């Protein structure tokens, strides 16, 4: 079996030769592509620090085999801002103190982007909390995180309305 794969990471095509098939998507991003914004917390699907979007859906990259995702489009925290302009979710995390040490934050932000895309929570804080439950924060910044997600969701909806008006 050929162990070379190609991914589109943050809009850029990357061809990678894998040393062996054990490489996870998380290790590939961090060790091979030097995209260290995606964090390794537990490496076992239990914390959400490694959350990225694969073909638009949030998943835990630590429990994804890179070779199984040959051809996929990956969005990581490095790819969400437009130059100096922060993504609305990033801006909302700053505005609402959605972090303290920051270690869980890339995963929280990617998860929140995925959540808003999924459109299941509405503006109910309880649903937002439940839909963010796959991301642990040891600093306990949850109150700010919930507010940030609600706020970002609102500003993205307003921006979309303006665009379609």
């Amino acid at each position, binding site marked *: *079996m050929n*162990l070379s794969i190609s991914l589109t990471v943050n809009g850029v095509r990357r061809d990678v030769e894998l040393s*062996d*098939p*054990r490489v*996870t998507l998380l290790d590939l991003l961090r060790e091979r592509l030097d995209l260290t914004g995606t964090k390794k917390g537990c*490496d*076992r*699907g239990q914390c*959400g620090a490694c*959350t990225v979007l694969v073909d638009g*859906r*949030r*998943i*835990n990259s630590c*429990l*994804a*085999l890179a*070779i*199984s995702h040959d051809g996929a489009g990956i969005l990581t925290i490095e790819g969400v801002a437009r130059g100096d302009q922060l993504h609305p979710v990033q801006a909302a995390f700053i505005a609402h103190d959605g972090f303290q040490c920051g270690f869980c934050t890339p995963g929280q932000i990617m*998860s929140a982007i*995925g*959540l808003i895309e*999924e459109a*299941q929570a509405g503006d*109910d*804080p*309880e*649903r937002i909390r*439940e*839909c963010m*439950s*796959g*991301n642990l924060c040891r600093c306990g910044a949850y*109150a700010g995180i919930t507010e940030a997600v609600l706020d970002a969701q609102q500003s993205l909806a307003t921006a979309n309305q303006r665009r379609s008006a």
Partner: protein
Amino acid sequence: MKNFEYVRPASVSDAVAAAAVPGSAYLASGTNLLDLMKGGISRPDRLVDVTRLPGLDRIEHLADGGIRIGALVRNADLAHDPDFAKSCPAVAEALLSGASPQLRNAATVGGNLLQRTRCGYFYDTASACNKREPGTGCDARHGENRLHAVLGWSEACIATHPSDFCVPLVALDAVVEIEGRAGRREIALEALYRLPGDTPERENVLEPGDLIVALRLPPAVRTFSAHARYLKVRERTSYAFAMISAAAGLRIEAGKIRDARLALGGVAAKPWRARPAEDILAGASADAATFRRAAEAALADAKPSGDNLFKIELAKRIIVRALTLAAVGTPARMSALPGSPFASVSGVLHDA
């Protein structure tokens, strides 16, 4: 992690042939298998990646009113499919009570059914575990076992099956379609799993190479849609496995229960269908006394496997609660905290 050969077959028959080779394992999303491989609990020589197999990612509404779900349908997609969630609300609730949104986006139907126990000693390769290494003993039997089985366990193994999804599925008579070396066959989900007996390493009746291709629900599931709930007690509100769970479905006509379905999770090595309870419910009036009698019947054979006597009474109370909520009616909208007995008034901030 031990190294392995990776193969990605293009057809179901190629997959079956590849996986029939000893030492092979199917890889779906890998959220359970990779975890076990990282810990050295599973050590396959070859992974047969099924994620690109054609035709296994559909939810089909069959002409007879049944529902057929491909083995590669993602847990989140199934739970959020509006038609499916309407027909099988307790299944949708069970799915949404499990794991996290990220894991549900990845996890497949087939992988969920075949996920392995979360017994801590099974996960710890330094411990004795008959399931992981037959004949070595069971460190859980006299260890930390408050979450272990109270039904169907043996001296050899007291582990539970961790899936939420499977609990309402066995209540609703789900059937799995299997492609094997001898062709296609189907089997009731309830009969897929084996109780531990003396061979806890044999968890199901699948043979080498057997691939789950689909899950089927009979048309009768719709008769329970108006009164169906899944309730799950965990050690924290979300993102935790069940300590005890119950799936309840009722068909109520003129204040009387005409037909009932009940199954329990977290109590045994398989999702546990509570037929004696169903028999009591059928024909009875939907009240607290009936529900308690049903709960007593469901747990009549239960016995603690360690420090878990509390689970028996807890299971009874969860049954009564699940039946009570089912009798009230399936909520128009999915609970904000799916499966949680602690669901509060939606929209209220805990910290407000």
